[in-house]
């Protein structure tokens, strides 16, 4: 039977080791890029989960389309800086509108998110249709990123040193910023995420912290979707934190586990993509979901197997 399936041969060495050794030229920067994206998203995602704002990432990623179109029209071309600023502005704008709706109307956050991101995405689609003659910008190019193309970019040189391709440098910078913000603002983030009431009483400006977090989220999402697209970036924001939450409830360990999740899903994701010869970003997300399922099964305390054992012990 197995021959009839015509699945490619499964060779662990070729899938998990070779991409990082013999084929390093092909997959090296792709892996680093994937890790920077997944780790930035995962670290930030922890705080989104703690604050029950998991879908905020979805909102930001779908809201960038109108910003991209307007930036394209204003700058008269595909200027990367202008596009980036446009996307950032409309992502941030979306979070502000959501907060406003939540505070000033009887709507809860889920409804506010649903209204804002779909409306902004729809505006973006309309703009691309109306200005179709002047812009070469499909809604598709926002929805699908392309991680593999990183490997084809020539690396930046700095003096005698050969650095990484520009996209990788940018994303590494974003990751460094996320790590830096968390390291410096750790206590404030901790207390305002777990208990806003206490934070406010202790003099923390909860609103400012939230705004800063949304700014960082917009930055991460906009930088990431060049690589993975607006849909899959949401999975990368939520899966590492969600997996870590199953295994621990202490914030420092949540961070470590989220980064570990990011690294493992990229490693296995590249293996899966090589095996099936398919697109990379979805393969990474699938492996991230597999890791989540494994954690759910095997978590020492709340996992399915641990629960079953405990129930069996109680019954006997």
């Amino acid at each position: 039977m197995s021959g009839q399936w015509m699945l490619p041969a499964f060779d662990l060495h070729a899938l998990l080791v070779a991409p990082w050794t013999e084929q390093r030229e092909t997959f090296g920067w792709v892996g680093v890029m994937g890790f920077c994206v997944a780790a930035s998203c995962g670290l930030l995602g922890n705080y989104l989960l703690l604050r029950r704002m998991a879908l905020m990432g979805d909102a930001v990623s779908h809201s960038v389309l109108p910003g991209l179109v307007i930036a394209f029209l204003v700058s008269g071309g595909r200027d990367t800086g202008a596009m980036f600023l446009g996307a950032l502005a409309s992502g941030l704008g979306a979070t502000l509108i959501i907060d406003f709706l939540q505070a000033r109307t009887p709507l809860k956050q889920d409804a506010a998110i649903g209204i804002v991101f779909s409306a902004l995405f729809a505006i973006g689609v309309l703009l691309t249709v109306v200005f179709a003659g002047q812009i070469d910008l499909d809604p598709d190019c926002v929805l699908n990123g392309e991680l593999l193309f990183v490997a084809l970019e020539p690396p930046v040189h700095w003096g005698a040193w050969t650095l990484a391709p520009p996209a990788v440098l940018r994303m590494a910078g974003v990751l460094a910023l996320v790590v830096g913000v968390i390291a410096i603002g750790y206590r404030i983030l901790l207390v305002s995420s777990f208990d806003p009431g206490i934070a406010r009483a202790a003099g923390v400006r909860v609103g400012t912290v939230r705004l800063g977090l949304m700014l960082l989220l917009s930055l991460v999402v906009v930088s990431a979707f060049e690589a993975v697209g607006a849909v899959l970036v949401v999975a990368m924001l939520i899966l590492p934190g969600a997996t870590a939450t199953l295994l621990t409830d202490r914030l420092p360990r949540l961070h470590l586990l989220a980064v570990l999740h990011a690294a493992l899903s990229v490693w296995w994701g590249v293996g899966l993509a090589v095996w099936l010869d398919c697109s990379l970003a979805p393969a990474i997300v699938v492996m991230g979901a597999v890791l989540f399922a494994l954690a759910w099964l095997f978590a020492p305390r709340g996992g399915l197997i641990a629960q079953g054992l405990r129930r069996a012990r109680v019954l006997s």
Partner: protein
Amino acid sequence: MLSVARVASVIRALVLLAALAGVGTPLGAAVALRVVATTPLVADLVREVGGPRVSVRSLMGPGVDPHSYQPTPSDLRALQEADVVAFHGLLLEGRMEGVLQRLRTRRERVFAITADLAPAQLRQVGEGASTVDPHVWFDVRLWRDCVEPVVRALSQADPAGTGVYRARADDLRQRLSGLDAWVREALAVLPPERRVLVTSHDAFGYFGRAYHFEVVGLQGISTVGEAALSAMAELTQFLTRRRVPAIFVESSVSPKAIQRVAADAGIRVGGQLYSDSLGPPGQTAEGLDPSTYEGMVRHNVRTLVAALR
């Protein structure tokens, strides 16, 4: 109910398709150059010029819409290992063209087959700067002008083969001139009022300009946007008013909208035209092989004549 067997057969079909799409020419002993081409059309042109001296791999399989192509790890490796990379240009490949342009700085032999076309030969659509219609291959004479960049790139990468490439290119240009004459002759049976070509998206602008057809597309140049309802209604009115006998679906675009318009206007779908891609290899029909440029052109013209006369 989805049975395991059915799922298995679907997966098998998908895997088989994927395997077929990836087939390149096997490496023979005499092969001097490994070329990666983006689309089947570009691959066909390079094969015609290179003959047995080159092995060509097309990144996009038959029927793949170049606007929505996603690369795989093996595509990436092929691109990195290729001696020459040929792409179409004029933004047909969308964002990928930017990537290929940057690749050019690292590897010199990356070229666009449309590099020699003068601005006056190209169709402007809309007003902006980046709004050239990329579908030049439907004007056989323009396609003939795409031969020279191929010869240059191949000769540069493999100077020993220059003579072979020149000779094959001259032969190819002659055959393309013959093909152009054949198209004009075949279409001569259609009176001017019957020369209306209605398809899914505006891929046939060059065809219309070269062979005197009025071309109406349901969608814009890009294949991505859904056909707007108003466009469908307008098109239905147009068809009824002009008494157009048939409209056509395209191989790389979903046929639904066109089928719907045909039903609304009470006319028939005249057949499938190849637009952004070629046909799958090995499916020769009525002596034509639509997996080659020439076969594709002849197929399209025969389909048009049969439906519109």
